[in-house]
C-alpha cells in the first residue's frame, strides 16, 4: 500500500478545514472545519500506523492515538458548542465577526 493516497487525501481534507476556519462567518461552521482538520490529522496517524506497523510485529500506536484524538475532539466540541451557545444567548448571533471586542 502506498502512503501517498491517504496523505494526499489527508492534506486535501486539512486544506478544506483551514479554508473553512479562515473564511466561514458562522461559528458553528468554524467549529466543524476544525473537526475536519482534526480528522485529517487522525487519518495521518492511522495511515502511518498502518504503513510502519505492516511487518510481523504490528504497531498499534497510530490507532491508539487516533482513538485519543477522537475522544479529545469530542470533548473539545462540547466546550466549543457551549461557548457558541453562550455567545448566541448574549448576542442573538453566532457571527464571529461580531465577537471582536478583544482588540485595541
Amino acid at each position, binding site marked *: 500500500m502506498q502512503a501517498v493516497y491517504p496523505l494526499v487525501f489527508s492534506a486535501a481534507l486539512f486544506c478544506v478545514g*483551514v479554508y473553512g*476556519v*479562515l*473564511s466561514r462567518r458562522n461559528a458553528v461552521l*468554524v467549529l466543524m472545519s476544525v473537526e475536519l482538520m482534526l480528522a485529517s490529522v487522525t487519518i495521518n496517524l492511522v495511515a502511518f500506523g498502518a504503513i510502519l506497523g505492516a511487518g510481523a510485529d504490528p504497531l498499534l500506536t497510530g490507532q491508539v492515538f487516533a482513538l485519543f484524538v477522537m475522544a479529545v475532539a469530542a470533548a473539545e466540541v462540547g466546550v466549543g458548542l457551549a461557548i457558541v451557545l453562550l455567545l448566541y444567548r448574549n448576542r442573538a448571533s453566532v457571527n*464571529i*465577526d461580531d*465577537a*471582536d*471586542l*478583544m*482588540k*485595541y
Partner: protein
Amino acid sequence: MSEFAWLIPAVMALSALTILLFGKRMPRHGAEVGILALGVAFVLSVLVAVEVFSANVAAVAEVEEAHSVQSVWEVGGREVTLVVDAAEGGEAAEIPAGVHEFRLEQSTELSPIGGGFSIEAGTRIDGLTAMMFLLVSFVSLMVHVYSTGYMHGDPRYTWYFTLLSVFTFSMLLLVIANNLLMVVMGWELVGVCSFLLIGFWWEEKANSDAAIKALLTTKLGDVGLMVGVVGLWSEFGTFNITRIYEGVAAGDFDQGLLTFSLLALFIGAVGKSAQFPLHTWLPDAMAGPTPVSALIHAATMVTAGVFLIARLYPVYQASPTTLTVIAIIGVITLFAMGLLALVQDDVKRVLAYSTISQLGYMVAALAFSYTAGIFHLFAHGFFKALLFLGAGSLIHAVHSNNMSDMGGLRKPMPVTFATFVIGSAALAAIPPLAGFWSKDEVLAGAFGAGGYSGTLVTVLGGLGGMITAFYMARVLWLVFAGEFRGNGHPHESPAAMKWPLVVLAVPAALIGFVNLPFDFAHPRGFAAWTMFDLAYFEGHPVEFNLLLALGTTLLALLGIAAATAIYRRRAAVANDPMLRLGLFTQVLQNKYYLDQLYMGVIVRPLRDRVAPAAYWFNDHVLDRIVNLAGAGAVGLGRVTYRTVDQRGIDGVVNGIGSTANYTGNLLKFAQSGNVQLYAGALFVGVFVLGVLFAVA
C-alpha cells in the same frame, strides 16, 4: 621597688585627671588629691632612691676591693703594693666583670613603623633618675602645700592644682624616659604647662604677654632640640638612651655630625634652662603665681635643660668642641645675668636672675664634671624653692612685688625672715650651707680641669659668687631691715605657707653634707649614688681645694660686707647707690638691651613685616587660588550636569522609553480582535517556517 618606679609619674597623671574631673566637688577643691598623690610619689621616690643609691654604693665598693687586690705587683723580686684608688682618675679605673651600676630599663615596643624601626615607650631608672625623682617630688609637694595658702580663694583654684599635677607629671615623664622621643614629649608638656601657669592670671595683658614670650622663646630652643634628637637618631639609628651610650662607647660615629647634633640639643637646653642668649623669658615668667615660680625655678622647668645635658653626659664627652661651647655659654650666663640682679626692685626678679646665674653654674659645671653639675642642680633646687616660697610669703603679706614697698619685715614675719636668711646664705655659698659645697665643687671641677675655659669658669664663677652674695645681702637689708615702707600692717603668713618654708630650710641648710669633698665621705657619697654608669663614675671627681674654697668664701663674705656697708643705713630703694652708677646702671636696667634687640631685630620685623606679608599672601594669593579652584569645580560640575547627565544619560533612558512607546503605538493595530485574522497569520507563519525547515 624600682620596677614600680613608673607609678611615680602615673600617680601624678591620675591625680591630674581626678582633680580635673571631680576637683570642684571635693571639700578642698582638688588640692587634697594633688598633695596625696605627691605624698605617694615622694614615698615611692625615697624607696626607689634607697634601692638605687645603695646598689650603686655597693658597686663602687666592689670596684675598690677589686683594685686593692689587683694592684699588688712584683717588681724585680720585690713585692710592691700600689694602692690605686678607684676614685682617683675615673678613666684609669678598670671595672671588674660582673660589677655594674644600678640600672633598670623597662620598655614596651609600640607598633612597628617599618624599615626595621619601631617606637618604644619605656622607663630607665638609674642614679640620675632617682635623684631627680627625689628633688621634683619633694619640691613639688612643698609647693602644693604652700599653694593651698597662697592661692586660697582664687576663682580658678581647682584648675591651678590640675596644672600643678600635670606640670609635675610632665617633668617626671621627662626624667624617667629611656628614649629621646619620650624626653621630647615630657619636655614639650613641661613647656605647655609653664605657659599655662605663667599666664595663669591672664586677665592682665602683661601676664599673658609673659606667657607667650616664655612659650615662644623656649620653642625657639625646642627647634634645636628636635634637630638634635633627629641628628642623634641619624647617627646611632635609635632613640634609646642606653643604645646611644653604647654607640658612643663603640666609637662608631661621625665627629662632625655628632658635634652638630649635640650643639643643636644644647640650643634646646639653652632655651629651657634660660641660658644666654635665650634667657629673656625667665624674668618675665615671674608674672605667674609665686609658688609656680618656685616650681619652675627649682624643680620642673629650667632644670630640664641641665638634666638633658646630664642625661647625655657620655655623648657630650665625645665632643670637646661642644663642651667648650657649653662652658662658655654657662660662664657668660652665670656672670652677666648675676649682674642684672643688682639693680632689680622686684624681689622675684632678683631671684629670677639669680636662678639664671645659678643655671649658668650648672651648665658650665657639666662641661667639666657630671657630679658637680647635678649636685648643684640638686642643692640649688632646695634653696631656690625655699627663697621663692619665702618671696611669695613676703608678697602675700605686703601685696607688692617691689622691695621699695617692703622693709622692716623681720619683726612681723620671723619665720619667713629666718628661712629666707638660710636660703640666701645657701645661695650666697656661705659654709656650711648647701650652696657652698655645690658651688665649690663646680669651681674646683673647673679649676681642676684647667685650660682656657676651666680658668675662665673658675675666675668668673668666683666673682659671680661675690655678686650673688652682694645682691642677696642687698635683698635681705632692703626687705627685712629699716622701716616698713608699704601700706597696711604686714603679718606672718598662714601655717600652710609657713611650714613648707621650715621644711625646705632643712635640706637648704644640710643637703651639702651628702657630698662632702673630704676623704671620710669619699667616694661613696652623692657621686656614687647618682652615677648612671660605672664607666663614667668620677669617684670623688674633684679634689677639695682649700685655697679655692677659702678664696670663694672670702669673696662671698666680701660681697656681703659691701652690701651691708651700703644698705645698713639707707635701707631705701630711692637712694640706692646701685641705681646711680650712670652707664652701668642704665645698661643693667635695660637688661643689656637684649629685649630691645630681640624686639627690634626679631619680633618687630616678624610681627610688622613678615606676618602682614604672610597674611596678605594668604589672603590674596592662597585664598584666591583656593576660591578659583572652588569656582572651577562648581563650573565643571554644572557643565557635567547639563551635558553628560541631562543630555547623555537621561537621553538614553528617555530614548528607551519613548522608543518602546512608539513601536507599541505602531503594533497595537495588529490587535484587531478578529480571530480568523489571527488564525490566518498563524497558518502563514507555520507555512513559512515549514518552507524554511524544508529548505534548510
